[in-house]
Structures are given as structure tokens and as C-alpha cells.
């Protein structure tokens, strides 16, 4: 994908193809998560005989994991700032920290899912449960893909093939990472903090 950047010289707008492509992609992702969130909003009160969202959400716990994800945005931007300075060591540290914070978040999500499951909320319990797991699951998959990309960069960096010239790669993956964080900001407020129906 970095192909054209190498074969071409400057671009019409002065922005690299890849970065522009990422932004267009993120615009598109807004519609994807919008649809998932709308689905959830339609179904938050349709929990049939299963647990209602208000019964099972654990706000303190989710607050912590939300905070973790939020801070991973900070470490991500620090990684970028480091590689831009040519500070490869710090870049590596921050990349790894970001991936770890992301993993912590995913771990929290896995824990949350299993707790919910034990409390009787399976994927097929009700429209609410299906919508909830689908939405948060999609987000989780996005985070996981982000972690994979961060780790790939980390390994490249160890092998010495992620250098100052490649700061744009870090930046683009960072954009993706921040976007996923933004989506969670939305989810956290609208789905967890806005009081949910109880049974």
C-alpha cells in the first residue's frame, strides 16, 4: 500500500495517499459504528426475559477500563512524537505501552463479557444482548486489530526497520487508534452512563 508513495512524487494536495485514505476510511467507519450504536439504542429496552442493561452494567469497572483506553491515546501520541524526533527508543517504549494498555482494555472486556454471561446474558438471550455484544464486540475487534498493528510496528522497530522516515506509518496507525478510542468515548457515555432500563 505504501507503493504509490514510493513511486510517485508529490501529490496534488500535498498529503500522502495513505494518510488521506485513512481519513476517508475513518469517515466511513463513522457510519459503521453509527449503525451499530443505533441498533443498540433501539434495542436497549428489549431484554425479553433476560437481564436488562441497568441490571448488569458495572459502571466503576467500565470507568476504569475506559480510562485505560483513553490513556492509551496519550501513549500513542507520545510514540508518534518520539519517532518524529528520531527518538526510536522512546517510540518503542510508547508503542509497547499503547499495545499493553489496549490489551488491558480487551482483557477488561473479556472479563465483562464472562461476568455478563454468568449473570444470564448470552449472545442469544434477547435483542438487547445481541445488540450489546455485537456493538462492543465490533469495537473490541477494532482494538485488537490495532494491537496487532502496534505489535507489528514494535517488532519492525526492534529489527531496525522503523525509523524516523517512517513516522507517517506510526501516525496513520495512530489515527486509527485514536478513532477507536473516540468511538469508545461515545459508547461509554451513551451506553453505560446514560441510565439504562432495568427489569
Amino acid at each position, binding site marked *: 500500500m505504501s507503493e504509490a508513495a514510493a513511486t510517485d512524487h508529490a501529490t*496534488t494536495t500535498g498529503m500522502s495517499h495513505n494518510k488521506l485514505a485513512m481519513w476517508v476510511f475513518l469517515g466511513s467507519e463513522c*457510519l459503521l459504528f453509527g449503525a451499530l450504536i443505533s441498533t443498540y439504542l433501539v434495542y436497549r429496552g428489549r431484554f425479553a426475559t433476560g437481564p436488562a442493561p441497568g441490571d448488569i452494567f458495572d459502571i466503576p469497572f467500565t470507568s476504569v477500563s475506559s480510562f485505560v483506553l483513553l490513556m492509551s491515546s496519550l501513549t500513542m501520541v507520545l510514540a508518534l512524537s518520539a519517532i518524529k524526533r528520531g527518538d526510536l527508543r522512546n517510540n518503542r517504549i510508547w508503542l509497547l505501552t499503547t499495545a499493553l494498555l489496549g490489551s488491558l482494555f480487551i482483557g477488561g472486556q473479556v472479563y465483562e463479557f464472562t461476568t455478563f454471561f454468568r449473570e444470564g446474558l448470552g449472545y442469544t438471550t434477547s*435483542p438487547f444482548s*445481541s445488540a450489546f455484544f455485537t456493538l462492543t464486540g465490533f469495537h473490541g475487534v477494532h482494538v485488537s486489530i490495532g494491537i496487532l498493528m502496534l505489535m507489528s510496528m514494535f517488532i519492525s522497530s526492534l529489527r531496525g526497520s522503523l525509523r524516523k522516515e517512517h513516522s507517517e506509518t506510526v501516525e*496513520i496507525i495512530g489515527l*486509527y487508534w485514536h478513532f477507536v478510542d473516540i468511538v469508545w468515548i461515545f459508547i461509554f457515555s451513551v451506553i453505560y452512563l446514560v441510565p439504562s432500563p432495568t427489569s
Partner: protein
Amino acid sequence: MTATTTVEDVVGQPLGVYTRPRGGNGWRDWITTVDHKKIGILYGVAALFFFVVGGIEALLIRLQLATPNGTVLGADMYNQVFTMHGVTMIFLAAMPLSAAFANYLIPLQIGARDVALPRLNALSFWVFLAGGIVLNLSWVLGGAPDGGWFGYAPNTGIVFSPSPGMDFYALGLQMTGIASLVSSINLTVTILNMRAPGMTLFRMPVFTWMILVTQLLLVFAMPVIAVALFLLAFSRLFGARFFDPSVGGDALLWQHLFWIFGHPEVYILILPSFGIISEVIPTFSRKPIFGYPFMVFSGIAIGFMGWGVWAHHMFVSGIGPISVAAFSLSTMFIAVPTGVKILNWMATMWGGRIKFSAPMLFAVGVVSMFTIGGLSGVTHAISPADTQQTDTYYIVAHFHYVIFGGIIFGLFAGLYFWWPKVFGHQLSDLIGKVNFWVMLVGFNLTFGPMHVLGLQGMARRIDSYSPGFGFEFWNMVSTIGSFLIALSIAIFVVNVIRSAMKAKGQPPCGPDPWDARSLEWLTPNPTPVHDFDEIPVVESLDEFWHRKYGTDENGRVVRVASAEEVCQDGSAVGVHLPSPSFWPIVFAAGLPFIALGLIFNLWLTVPGGLLVVMAIYAWVFEPVDDPDAAHGDVSEVADTTEEAPVV
């Protein structure tokens, strides 16, 4: 996709499996190509193939309905056939045929050598093809989808559609959707970022503009259908309760999601065709397009308004009178920008010296036939009347007039127009004219009567009707018409074969067969691999034309240069081009395994997943260029060394 942006600098390391394929020739060249022209041709061939498949399904529909209580297909088979007809025509024929034109022409029209992300471009095609294959595999693997092309829940759920057909629908369309999304991002970036020096946005040909609007619609519409299809797939495969009314699932959720995508989709289908005829009409009228900025802005307006009207497909679905009223009005006013286009095309022709060659005939066909469909669209938009019309053949008439009259005619105009550009020889104009007239007559005979049938109350998606409702005559007429359409397609095929045989051994046709206007004609016919010998510097709209003609002191048009003088001769050597790659097709090959695995046996997802992961990693580590490839002799004849444009 972002994973791919990482390491690009393994160049110089031992390459092993990552060695990129050489240009080569034969089939190897086709499956590894990243050349936008070849990919365009691949799209075109696949789309025409699927068009014939969808057409044969249409003929089966028409045979079944030719007489009351038809017995050609059983009820079950009929439902599969009409569903697959709609799905095939929309997703596997009309969209990719537009993509074919976009891929081939966009870089040429904006003065670029390729699209922004060539390997992703190849990926789009192969993933699309894999999706089309998956969809059609359903015929032999347990039954095709049978829920209609818009697949309303809960009829598509596992209870009411127990055959795997709707799984194929959900997963196959998901794949074509991914392909469209990737290619739309790619083309958006290409158009914004790769214009030749001087090619400002308002010097771009109308076709390029319409493709840009289309790509933006795709960028924002595809994720919506993706979510809808995920919900459907998860419901069917994993038992999710999205559409199960017994626990509170709402049948309207699917409808909203589908049509939020579905209405922009119809403009995704029509705008490329509008773009094509906006190139053809000025060329053959020997006049510039009338009201270029209005053409551009009306296209943008259509794209924009297309987002606020989706519920006109749901006037009777129970969305409540206020929503109905709002969507009714918003829908009507789409007629305004569309009308601007129609009238501007007419004004372009007005006062021209029009040559009615085959492409022009098809283009004029669009102007008139699309109008009929558009006007019946307005009669649906008045929601009270739509409660009588919806789900009758009156709707079927509407959308075939806009689709066949608007899209298929437009795409044929494009095929005839750009054929010499792509293949270096023209199609016979005479056969082309016969093709047009047979198609025009057949088309009106097929779909005209459907207006009457619909108003007489014939419901759509019925596998048979009883005698006595007065449907017999017009159905027979319609069936006869559909075979005339088939004849016209056969004439086209004959034309293609005959012209190719005639052209064999002949030198290519001249550089400028139509006295055309836009930049793609600056390159010789057929287009050389490297497109432009030298990236042109653009000074005006209709750049190519302005290089050929000037005005004398009386303001009359005079030729200042012959086409041969203006056109490049394609002789540049050593132009640096992106190398081909195996990985797009490998990636795409993994997806059908995953799809089939989800439907039949999860183990199958393992090889599929491995292929995909392997392709991604190989892709990332693949060197930018094969260091051994023969571009060492770069004579720097005409690389893109000029500074990129600062508009």
C-alpha cells in the same frame, strides 16, 4: 488495511517468497496485475458475464410469467431466480461495470499513471469476483437466496428461509461490499491526490466528477449495508435475536438499515452513467457541455439529497404519518437537480451539429428513457399514491426504466465510445445502431407494459397469476420484449467478435476517432501500459479539445493542430511502474473459504484465514519493487519528474 502500511523497507534483504512477479504475459499477467487498465478490463469482463447470467435469470422470470399459472419454474425456484436476478444485476453487473469505466478512465482523465493504491485496486477486483462466485455457488450448494434482493426480515431468518441461500446472500454481499468500499477509498484518494498539474477540480471532466460523487456515496453507504448484513449473518449463523419479534426484535430495523444504504445505492448506480453521457453528448454535438458548474453541482446535490429519502421505500411499512410526510416531500425534490441534468444535456445538444453515431444514440436513449423512469419515480414519491403502487409492477416498471433506460443504455454508450481507447479498434457503428434500435424497442416492449400491469394491480414477486385479472396480454408482450433485449445483447456480442476479427492484423485505429474532448484521448489507442508518455499540464476544461482547436478573429472554431500532432505516441520507455503482486488474489481466495466455513463447517475457515493472514503479511513485507525487474535502464524519458501540481 492499515497493517499494510508498515514495513516497506525490506528491500535489499533476501526476498524468498516475497519476490514480486514480473510483468510476464498470459494469464499470469492478468492475475497479478496492478495496472488500472487491466483491472478495468477484468471488471468489465466479469460484469458483462454476470449481466448475461442475470439476464438469463430475467428471461426465466419472463417465461414463467408469459402466461397465467406458469409452470416453467416452481414457486420455490421462482423466488430464488428473481432474488438472484436482482442481486446479480445490481451488485455483480451494474456496479462493477461502472467500476470498470471508473478504473480504466479515471487515471487517464485526470492525467495520472495509475490509481493511488494499485495493489488495493487489484484486491478490490478479486474480492468482488470472489463475492460474486460465492453468491452463485449457492445454486449448487443447497439453494440460492430466496428472500428478495432487499431481503426483508424476518422472512430471511433461519426459520422462514432454512436453506443456506440467505447465508450466501449475507456473506457474498459482504464481500462485494468490502470490495466496493476499498475501491471507493482508493478512487477518492486518486481523484483528489493524483491530478496532473493544472487539473483543478473544476477542470475535471464531468465523468470524473460523477465518479467522485459516486465514490463518496460508496464510502458512506457501504458500512451501513455491512452492518445490516452482519446482523443478518449473526442472526442466522449464531442465533442473534435482532429480528425475532417474539422477544422484541423489530422487523423495521432491517428495512431502515437496508434502505439507508439502498437509496444512495441507486444513485451510486446512476451517476457513473450520467457521467458517461456527459462526455458522449458534447463530443457528438461538437459543443461543450452546457452549464458545466450546474452539472457538477446538481450531481453533488443528488448525492447529498440521496441520504435523506430512504424511507420512501417504506411508505406502507408502518413508520407513522409524520415520517411518511417528511420522506415524501424530500423525495420529490430530488427531481429538481435531476431535471437540471436532463435539461442541460438537451441544451448541450441544442444548436449543435450532432452526429448520431452509436454511442450518441445510446446517450440520447438515456436522456429520454431515464426521464420516463424518473417521472414515475415522482409519482411514487407522493406517498398516498405509493400505497397503491408499492410492490406492484408499476414499481418494477419504474426501476427498470431508470436502471435499464438510465444505466444500461449509459454503459452501452460508454462501451461503444471508449472501445477504441481500450482495444485500439472501433466497434461497427452500423451494427451498433441496429443494436441500439433493437434494444430500445425491446426495452420499451418489456417494461412499458409493466406500468399498465402495475396499475391494474399485478403484485410483484409473484410466481404466477390467475387468469381473469386482465394480466395476460401485457405479460405476453413483456416477455416478447425481453427476448428482443436478449437479441440486442447478442447483436452486441456479434459486434464485438466481428470487430475484433476484422481488426486482427490491422494497425490500431487513429488516435482520436470521435474528435473527443478529454484528456484520456491524449494517449494513443489502445492505451500503452504507462498511460502518458509525459504527464500533461492542463490549462482548461476539455483540455484535449482545446489543444486541437482555437478560435479565429470572428470567434469561429478553427483547428490549430491535428489529433496526430496533439496526441502522444506512446513511445516512452523505462517509465517506472508499480510491479505486479500475487497477494491481492491470494487474499481474495481466502475469503470464500471463510464464507463457506461459516455456513457449512467451521474448519474450512482455517485454510481461508491462513490464506488471508499470509496474504496480508506477505503484502506488507513485499518489496515496493522487484529489485531485479528491468527498470534499471531508465532513460528518464518522461518520468513524472515535473513538480506535482500546486493547484
